């Protein structure tokens, strides 16, 4: 009896010790990498964190640091990825010139170390930037490169298709734009591209006089963009709805949506995060 009680007490004290040892074993430190690689990794992490926090200027500096560190280690794929990220942030900051220089640097690289996916990503981003700048012809040639390198196997294939639809829309080829957008919607793309496809489809339908369908697509895009919390897209959807409602002669409703769009644009503009960003639509 005495022995049994002694065993229980020992067990009671031993358990937390064992648990601590077990936890310690679980939490052992990973092996250290060389300092320069760790620094590059840290800069990349910090840049992503800054981007997540909306500090675009800091993100730009850190991506640049990461790119230079990777270049100094002759790690071409990693430096290309950092350059693509840097170009994205530069574009967000409105510095399209710098972004295009970085992307051209990747696209003109003839070494085999740059993977087709990285080339496709660079070409896709170049196409987006050029399309935003209204340079449709150059954007189309960039899209051709993206399509060739991607070969319908990239993660952003729906983005490439949407960009083609956008360019068709800008050229006035509404049926083609609508067809591509519908393909993207039916392919079950990720939410952000689904919303983009719906917006393109809505704009094409509005141009083709299919106002009810356009309104439905704009409203569906609005729902998705609100889920994704993307202010510029929400404003774009609301403005699209206003245009369609006006064409349908529903002026009072159009006024309400116009007011909502103005509120979204004004509030987003007043946010300190957006002070350094390119202007809203």
């Amino acid at each position, binding site marked *: 009896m005495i022995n049994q009680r002694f065993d229980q007490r020992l067990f009671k004290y031993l358990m937390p010790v064992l648990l601590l040892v077990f*936890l310690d074993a*679980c939490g052992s430190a990973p092996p250290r990498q060389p300092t320069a690689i760790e620094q590059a990794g840290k800069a990349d992490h910090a840049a992503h964190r800054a981007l997540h926090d909306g500090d675009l200027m800091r993100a730009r500096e850190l991506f640049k640091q990461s790119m230079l560190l990777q270049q100094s280690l002759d790690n071409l794929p990693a430096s290309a990825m950092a350059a693509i990220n840097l170009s*994205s942030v530069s574009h967000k900051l409105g510095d399209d010139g710098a972004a295009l220089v970085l992307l051209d640097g990747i696209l003109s690289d003839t070494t085999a170390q740059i993977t087709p996916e990285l080339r496709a990503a660079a070409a896709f981003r170049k196409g987006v930037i050029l399309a935003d700048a209204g340079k449709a012809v150059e954007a189309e040639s960039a899209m051709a490169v993206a399509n060739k390198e991607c070969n319908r196997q990239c993660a952003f294939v729906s*983005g490439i298709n949407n960009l083609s639809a956008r360019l068709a829309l800008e050229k006035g080829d509404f049926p083609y734009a609508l067809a591509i957008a519908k393909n993207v919607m039916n392919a079950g793309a990720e939410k952000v591209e689904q919303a983009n496809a719906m*917006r393109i489809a809505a704009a094409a339908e509005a141009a083709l006089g299919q106002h009810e369908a356009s309104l439905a697509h704009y409203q569906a895009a609005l729902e998705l963009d609100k889920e994704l919390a993307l202010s510029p897209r929400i404003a774009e959807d609301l403005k699209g709805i206003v245009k369609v409602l006006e064409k349908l002669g529903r002026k009072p409703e159009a006024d309400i949506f116009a007011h909502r769009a103005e509120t979204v644009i004004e509030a987003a503009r007043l946010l300190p995060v957006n002070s350094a960003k390119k202007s809203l639509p």
Partner: protein
Amino acid sequence: MKLLADKDERFKSLFVKVSIFVLLAVLGVTLNLLFSGIKKGFFTPKSAIYFVAGTGQDIKVGMPVKLSGFKIGSATSLELDEKAQARVELMIENRYLPLLNEDAVVSLKKEGVIGDSILEARRGSEGGPQLKAGASIKFERSGGLEQIAQDLRDRLYPALDEINKLLKDANDPKGDVRQTLSNLRQFSADMQGTRARIDHMLGQIDEGIVNDVRPALRSVKQSAESTEAIIGKLNQEMPGLIKKTDASLDNVRQISETIKSAVDNSAPQLSGFLGETRGLVSDTRNIMDSASTSWPLKNIMQPPEQGMVRMDSHD
């Protein structure tokens, strides 16, 4: 006759037990009230004193009366007397009443710039007769922000009026300024005529005139002598002034050197301090990063983003 028989032992003497419980509760509440009352000074003997203010503005019933920062009483009533003045009754604790003299003054003040208003009592002249219960004392309002603003306004308004008047005079064609300017213009025109006449006279100068000019030359000589004297005085005082300036410059140089030396001494420490801070931040980040990738935090925290920044077709 009881409807239900109390067989349970615990219900015996229930009425007595409940009564004791209720009584204890009542006693507790009463004692609590009593102690609170004592602490709040409800039972402290007080005496009334009065003062009359031109207006009852900012004076409120319940306002504390303080002497040397201690509360000695409060305002208990405020009423309008037959001369339309505010008559205020103060209840002063009896133990503090002897501290006030008959010429004591109560003034309305604010505790701090934006604090509550209080009535602050001043004792009055040393050795004067003590204030008695029911007596009246003097009251004055003193300098809150409003008073300062009022004073400023009272001083600025006349100055502004004067400036306004001056500007009006300056703009008035018949005013002194315009008249003076007009006279000066006239004088200047006359002077041109005079100069022409002098030029003409100089052209016709002769010996007789030289004799007339001699007194004027003498006067000029006197002026030159005075100027010389002034320059001599300046020559005497200048070295002293230069010495003082040199001393000031030396002081400035010393201060500059002291600052430079302080900066030189602290710069390495500052650099070390910054380095240590950077190291500390780096270590902390390492710890946090390691902790966030270990169990159980890795299940709670979101994994850090890496790879390619997302960009869609509408970015």
